[in-house]
């Protein structure tokens, strides 16, 4: 077995590096820069039932080692994605994970039903943690009962394994994780962005047109590590970790904390070649640290019993 290979429900990742949803579009732009077949997988931009324009601009603000975004789930709608985006992605030898969002449980169900039937899609990422939309999004992601109910409904209609994307904006992410695990989630992805705000001191007004946005990037990494570590100890489904990963050591830190694979978001904006570079750097760094297989270190920070599946 390839020392970077990770097998998860529905996903046979040749390595644990996956661009995060919303930070890689549908791969078209990055395909001009490098061969996407080298990626473990790709988490594509959120799909909703209808095409959405999203929020007014400015949609991005910056903070120290972090960025705030309030894109607002702009996307061509599930049918547009199936018709125009997935065919393009089908040419690459990598695992496509479809991020599903909605305003109502029915919309989540409908989007999942359609997109999970496309053979290009290998797994669903249930986005119940988007802080940038008025209805849906974060609501489902902060109430364990609602999250469990939504997971159950989506699982019932999905033809592919369902990974639930958790929000860090909660008192107990462990409770959320346990609720969706019990509701049948096949895996977890975490963390989505922290809700944040910046104000322009010249106007006294929020920089983002949406006022608030989601904080991502290195600033949130210690929060992500802590949450992955807490959740990994109590669930038995795998975790795809994310939040501020920029360097190969960050990837290792997430896996030590209990993640089985790692998604890269904001870093793609700083360095569009980052995923390629991380994949190349991993084996070298593993050699230096005496790590044979990447999953040998999974959960070691809390003393997990190790196995490579």
């Amino acid at each position, binding site marked *: 077995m390839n020392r970077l290979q990770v097998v998860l429900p529905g996903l046979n990742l040749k390595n644990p590096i996956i661009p995060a949803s919303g930070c890689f579009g549908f791969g078209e732009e990055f395909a001009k*820069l490098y061969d996407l077949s080298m990626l473990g997988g790709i988490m594509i931009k959120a799909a909703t039932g209808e095409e959405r324009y999203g929020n007014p*601009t400015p949609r*991005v603000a*910056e903070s120290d080692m972090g960025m705030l975004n309030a894109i607002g789930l*702009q996307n061509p709608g599930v049918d547009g994605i199936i018709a125009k985006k997935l065919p393009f992605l089908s040419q690459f030898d990598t695992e496509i994970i479809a991020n599903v969002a909605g305003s109502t449980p029915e919309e989540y169900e409908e989007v999942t039903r359609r997109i999970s039937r496309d053979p290009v899609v290998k797994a669903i990422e249930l986005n119940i943690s988007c802080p940038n939309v008025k209805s849906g999004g974060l609501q489902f992601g902060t109430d364990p009962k609602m999250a469990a109910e939504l997971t159950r409904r989506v699982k019932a209609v999905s033809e592919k394994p369902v990974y639930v994307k958790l929000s860090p904006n909660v008192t107990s992410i462990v409770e959320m994780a346990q609720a969706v695990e019990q509701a049948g989630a096949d895996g977890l992805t975490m963390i989505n962005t922290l809700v944040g705000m910046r104000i322009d001191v010249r106007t006294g007004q929020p920089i983002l047109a949406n006022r608030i946005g989601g904080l991502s990037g290195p600033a949130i990494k210690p929060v992500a590590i802590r949450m992955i570590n807490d959740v990994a100890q109590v669930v038995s489904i795998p975790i795809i970790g994310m939040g501020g990963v920029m360097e190969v050591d960050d990837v290792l830190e997430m896996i030590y904390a209990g993640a089985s694979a790692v998604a890269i978001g904001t870093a*793609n904006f700083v360095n*569009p070649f980052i995923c390629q570079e991380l994949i190349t750097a991993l084996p070298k760094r593993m050699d230096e640290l005496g790590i044979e297989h990447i999953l040998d270190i999974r959960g070691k920070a809390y003393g997990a019993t190790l196995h490579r599946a």
Partner: protein
Amino acid sequence: MIQLLTVVTRRQIASGATELVCRRPDATPIEPGRFMHLRVGPLLRRPISIANVEGDLITFLFKEIGQGTKELARLRAGDQIDALGPLGNGFPVEHVARDAKIVLVGGGIGVPPLYYTMRRLVERGIACEAILGFDTADSVFYEDEFRKLGPTTVTTIDGTAGIQGFVTAALDSNRFDTLFACGPEPMLRSIQQVPIKHKFLSIENRMGCGIGACFACVCPTPDGHYVKTCSDGPVFRAEEVIL
């Protein structure tokens, strides 16, 4: 796509404005109106227009706004800059008719891309004029450089240099059939109203990726859709965008 640029000279050209001339690893031609996405100290890159290209030299002109441009202004000869680009689509200098009557209108930090654009038009043998708008005499830059290329009018809001008022005060639309503009949004909005047939506007927008993947920089279009400033623009036909 990512190049390491080496700073050759840095020079203050106006109050709070800097010219940075850098050496590129190669000398591939670049169309005017495109930009580079520069990684300085802060997390996100900073989009800066290409103000000139000569062989392997590339020039940036920029105003110090916040941390990014301040750090850029502190670079010294020999320092390196991680530059993603050139990105976006520029002004259609190769597509305008040879007898076109062109005016270039720049406002503040919108002036830089027009210098390279005008140079390239003049090289193609197309006569053109420039109108450059600034806040005040202190902030005027590159006036002489533009004059060497063709007739140039400077306007300042406070009247301390050139004509007092906004750039539109100096614009006689009857004399031109093509307009290239770059500047602050209010300026571009008023230019959208100017009765000149072909109008191309370079717009600004906060960016994430700079390559079309994140939807940060969208601009609505009259047909109810949107364009991305970074990859569809930054230059658009005036009718294409709702500002």
